[in-house]
């Protein structure tokens, strides 16, 4: 307090910045090392002490991933499964969030809460059998359907939160203006909740994209999603680290980019809903 306030504060801030940098160093080191591994030839990856920036950059690792492992197909599978499961979740989850918020129906929210608590594997046994009997196993549908277990709760949770905070008077005004309940939802509640929809869309997308356990049970050679494909590389190609790291990076890159660009929405959504898929 005796020192001039400005310098005092500046020092504090620099100190905090330093602490924060220390805290995020494991994150930065991890991702740097991941990139480094993916850009090195086998010799460099096997070197001791480890090399961070190699002399020869092995772009070929990335080419290899796509050439040898059908990665384009798996990438496309992931896009289809995640995309469809997320869009379906929005279609049924956004109205549900609206309904639950307006009904104050905590009871029905409990059903969704239980969906979040149940271990994914316990849905999988019966659904796996069901899909076998209905001959759906060779298609992407089993995975799309079961990914709804991840995406629908996320969307519903976040949307409940959003609709609870939008003023009810707007909807009353609309119903006085002659809107039916559906029109109230469609023309007033929905446009206002757009930011919430974006948040739930992004989070559902990410957690569905990352999902591994459903794919490992339900996917075959043709219907694998990216996480499963990467895992399979791990078991077959123990030795070549470069392509393995490249594959890992390819899988998670879309998610990381999304996290970067939609940081604000993601933080808002996670802080509010504290959700996680699986």
């Amino acid at each position, binding site marked *: 307090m005796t020192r001039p306030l400005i310098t005092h504060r500046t020092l504090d801030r620099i100190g905090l910045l330093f602490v924060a940098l220390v805290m995020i160093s494991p994150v930065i080191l991890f991702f740097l090392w991941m990139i480094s591994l993916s850009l090195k030839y086998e010799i460099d990856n096997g070197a001791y002490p480890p090399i961070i920036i190699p002399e020869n950059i092995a772009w070929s690792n990335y080419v290899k991933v796509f050439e040898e492992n059908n990665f384009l197909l798996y990438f496309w599978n992931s896009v289809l499964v995640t995309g469809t499961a997320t869009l379906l979740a929005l279609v049924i989850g956004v109205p549900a969030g609206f309904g639950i918020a307006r009904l104050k129906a905590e009871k029905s929210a409990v059903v969704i809460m239980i969906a979040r608590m149940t271990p994914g594997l316990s849905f999988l046994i019966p659904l796996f059998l069901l899909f076998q009997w209905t001959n759906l196993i060779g298609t992407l549908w089993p995975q799309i359907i079961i990914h709804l277990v991840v995406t629908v709760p996320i969307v519903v949770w976040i949307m409940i939160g959003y609709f609870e905070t939008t*003023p009810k*008077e707007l909807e*009353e*005004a*609309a119903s*006085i*203006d*002659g809107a039916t309940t559906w029109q109230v939802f469609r023309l007033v509640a929905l446009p*206002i909740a757009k930011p919430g929809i974006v948040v739930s869309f992004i989070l559902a997308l990410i957690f569905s994209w990352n999902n591994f356990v459903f794919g490992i049970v339900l996917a075959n050679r043709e219907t694998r999603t990216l996480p499963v494909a990467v895992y399979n590389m791990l078991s077959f190609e123990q030795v070549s680290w470069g392509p393995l790291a490249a594959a890992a990076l390819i899988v998670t890159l879309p998610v990381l980019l999304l996290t970067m660009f939609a940081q604000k929405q993601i933080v808002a959504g996670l802080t509010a809903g504290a959700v996680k898929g699986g």
Partner: protein
Amino acid sequence: MATVNIQNIQKNYGAVKVIHGIDIDIADGEFVALVGPSGCGKSTLLRMIAGLEEVTGGAIRIGPREVSHLPARDRDIAMVFQNYALYPHMTVADNMGFALKLKKADPAEIRTKVQRAAGILGLEKLLDRYPRQLSGGQRQRVAMGRAIVRDPQVFLFDEPLSNLDAKLRVQMRGEIKTMHQRIGTTTIYVTHDQVEAMTMADKIVVLHDGHIEQIGAPLELYDRPSNLFVAGFIGSPAMNFIDGRIEEGAFRTKKGLILPLPQGVAAAGGRDLVYGVRPEHIRAATHGIEGRATLVEGTGSEIYAKLDARGEEIACLFRERLDVRFGDTVSIDIDPARIHLFDKQTGLRL
């Protein structure tokens, strides 16, 4: 435009009775104000008329139609909310035209109607703005515009001016009144500000704890309040109430102060009464009732003073410039024709 007829309306929230059976008749084109203290059920009553709240009992008619159980959208009413409830994602024009769009009206027709309403309210230049780009008063006007465009049978207002500052409130008060005179739609207007009610309404309904205390024209309520509650609620500053009895043709308070009475009320002797006189009906006089000033507030146009006359506190409002200071003794004169007598037991006017 239509009459509104409210019959024995009741409202319970669970076991809690909020409205206890209310009857109101509203003529075609009438401007009715619902006033009462906070929590008395004004909003609840209005929302029942709007169809936003289910009635527990009784019937509501708009024109010849019984609407008690119709959803809001079928009642052909418009409502202006306290915080305006403008659709934030629509422009002013779209806000105002929303109801017509829902009715699938012709876009050109919507445009002309919106233009006309905007003309009435001076909103022509703001039609392409979004609500967040408007000032409080402008938002208020858009909310009214939204109601006008509808051309409904009844306008409902729920404390539409309470979010505005004092000056704007006076201005908007005038505008709403002008608008009503111009288009003449039946209007029900909720407020807890009695000045608003007095200045705007053709008829005032005073609510208290879910009951009607009195219905009447503003001056009627002012001149002949039918009970202590209305007498105390209407008029500002509030009426003086002094307990006492009639003895020997004069009003004698417990502390022995004698107050003048009009002719022919001596019959009410023998029971506890309340003597009511409005501060503005008390004049300074050269001699009369004497009191010591315990509070003096001058605004320039008038002087508000509290006098202690034999232990009774009497508030006075003097229009003339008097040189009164704290502690001075002032003589006052009460016009016996303008006093009110109430039964202390029942609270009713004699």
